[in-house]
């Protein structure tokens, strides 16, 4: 899951990026509102976290333009403006959620999860496919009622594959979904994660189609 944060304050931007990366999201962070459109065109983001008081370009105007151009990316406004009028206009202009600074990280993450699964039409954090079950809130993975511990990147990778079973993801696609800009990525990072997942859930859980990419086994229970 790749997220884009637009936040002009360096301290908040850095900290937020670090916190969300730790939770397994690929996080990019922009300080200047004028760069938002270009970034959204160049990468596939699952969510936009938007500050309102931005230099260069105001958060409201970014949001209005996005919606006018038909972009339906989930947008979470994160701001210090607590006036009801700001909340109302933010939501009316097409934001999906509105959070006031300061906030608890847990709550922000819960809201991010909510926005992401709403996009997929899910009601709860738990996704099932055959005997495989993953919980986005607790990062718990179980196969045939057997629980496994996953690192956040492994979990994120499994989630990406599971959301669209049967679809083949190239290594580059997976890298883009898993890592933000400036994040150190070893050349074999994806292979390492796949290896770890297979070690836990069995060799055949992820199929490798040579020179194309990876896909989740259509019926994970077989293993």
């Amino acid at each position: 899951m790749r997220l884009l944060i637009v936040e002009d304050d360096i301290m908040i931007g850095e900290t937020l990026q670090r916190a969300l990366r730790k939770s397994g999201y690929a996080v990019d962070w922009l300080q200047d509102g004028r760069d938002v459109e270009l970034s959204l065109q160049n990468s596939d983001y699952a969510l936009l976290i938007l500050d309102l008081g931005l230099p260069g370009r105001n958060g409201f105007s970014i949001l209005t333009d996005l919606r006018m151009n038909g972009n339906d990316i989930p947008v979470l406004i994160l701001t210090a403006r607590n006036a009801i009028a700001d909340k109302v206009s933010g939501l009316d202009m097409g934001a999906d959620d509105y959070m006031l600074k300061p906030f608890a990280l847990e709550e922000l993450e819960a809201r991010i999860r909510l926005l992401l699964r709403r996009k997929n039409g899910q009601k709860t954090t738990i996704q099932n496919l055959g005997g495989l079950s993953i919980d986005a809130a607790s990062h718990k993975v179980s196969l045939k009622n057997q629980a496994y511990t996953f690192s956040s990147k492994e979990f994120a990778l499994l989630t990406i594959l599971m959301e669209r079973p049967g679809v083949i993801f190239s290594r580059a696609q997976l890298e883009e979904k898993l890592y933000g800009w400036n994040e150190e990525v070893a050349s074999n990072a994806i292979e390492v994660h796949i290896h770890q997942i297979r070690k836990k859930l069995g060799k055949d859980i992820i199929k490798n189609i040579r020179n194309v990419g990876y896909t989740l086994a259509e019926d994970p229970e077989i293993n």
Partner: protein
Amino acid sequence: MSAIPWRKTLKSIKKRLLVSILAVIFLSTIASAGMTYFQLKAEMDELFDENMKQIAHAIAVHDLTAQSEFISESKDIRRTLKGEEEFLIQVWDQNRLSFSSLSSIEFPRQGPGGIQTVIFDNEEWRYYGLKTHGSWLIQIAQPIPMRHTVIWEIYFEQLVPTLIQLPILAGLIWFVIGFGFGPLKRISFSIEQRSAKFLQKLPEKNVPKEVFTLVKALNGLLDRLSVALESQRHFTADAAHELRTPLTVVRLELDILKQADSREERDQSIEKLYKAVDRSTRLVHQLLEMTRLEPEQIQEVPKPTTLKQLVETVIDEIAPLADKKSITLYLTNFENVSIEGRFHALSTMIGNLLSNAVEYTQEGGRIEISARSETARVIFKIADNGPGIPENERARIFDRFYRILDPAQSGVPGSGLGLSIVKSIVDAHGAIIHVSEGLDGRGAGFEIHFPKSPAI
């Protein structure tokens, strides 16, 4: 009545007016009453004297010889005259009293003479003696105290209406003054209705000339007050908004710290927490500085201050920071000029500008400070050869909490208040600040123009 309540009473203009108007009326009444008395007395004396003469002459016309027997038979035995307008009339034939209007009063024979005052029976009498063609002497006399009683009676009859008039006048004056004060009362009522949230101007229509200046001044005050309150409200909102930023970082870092699973992660969070707390502290410090510098609140009295002395005070604090970055500070073209100003505020201003210059200028940079005097103004300038301020940002850098968005400068900690504090101080001194290029065709330059005789 002790002194304080009296003074208190006179604090009411209405009472003060009433008391003084009544006092004036009372005193002038007394003065005119005194004058009236003396006039009346003179007139009455003249009148009585004339009466006495006329009576004497009227008697003298008659043939007194023929009636002498009849005249001597007076049966009245009163010892005093009846008072008003009664005179003692005697007719003397040689040394024999042939007639007396009141024989019990043994007024002696005085002899002929004009109007004169004589003593009889321990009393002063007014007397007129007329000698006829025969050997008769007609004497007319009247005791002066009696005369005075008559004058006093007439006088009091005149005075009473004046005395009755006084309380009525007081009531009327009280009412009229109250009426005259109506507009003032209405204004104070409208002022009473004003509050910090409702600072509408007072109506200036139909206001009497005397009160108009007051209303205008009050409206000016209300205007300034609402501007001050508005800026206060903005300031509080801005301050709250700005404090949320470091608080957000603190909250997030604590959340991260709680879940941290490596020492490295923990150290990173702790370091960030320190930074966030330092930032809040700096912010709070500058917010306080700023409130202290609100133009209405500057307490320090402006006095002649030499710029050199100011710069020297500030440089002592700045020099170590500049040394650390090997930045050289120069005083170039620094004339020995002085301005009318507040020392503490001005040194804060120069301190903020200089520490900005040191913060933003790269290692080994250069800062130049200059001062010169022109006919109407004194120009003070601080310029550096650092990265400078992009032209499109220059208009906004004095806004509260505004920070330049430039990745090259993003490492500099700050609250976005420093320059806004500088601006308040500049404004409070009636000066103007310009931002331009600094040295070597780059960098930032701040030029402050002080008026020679500032309107503070």
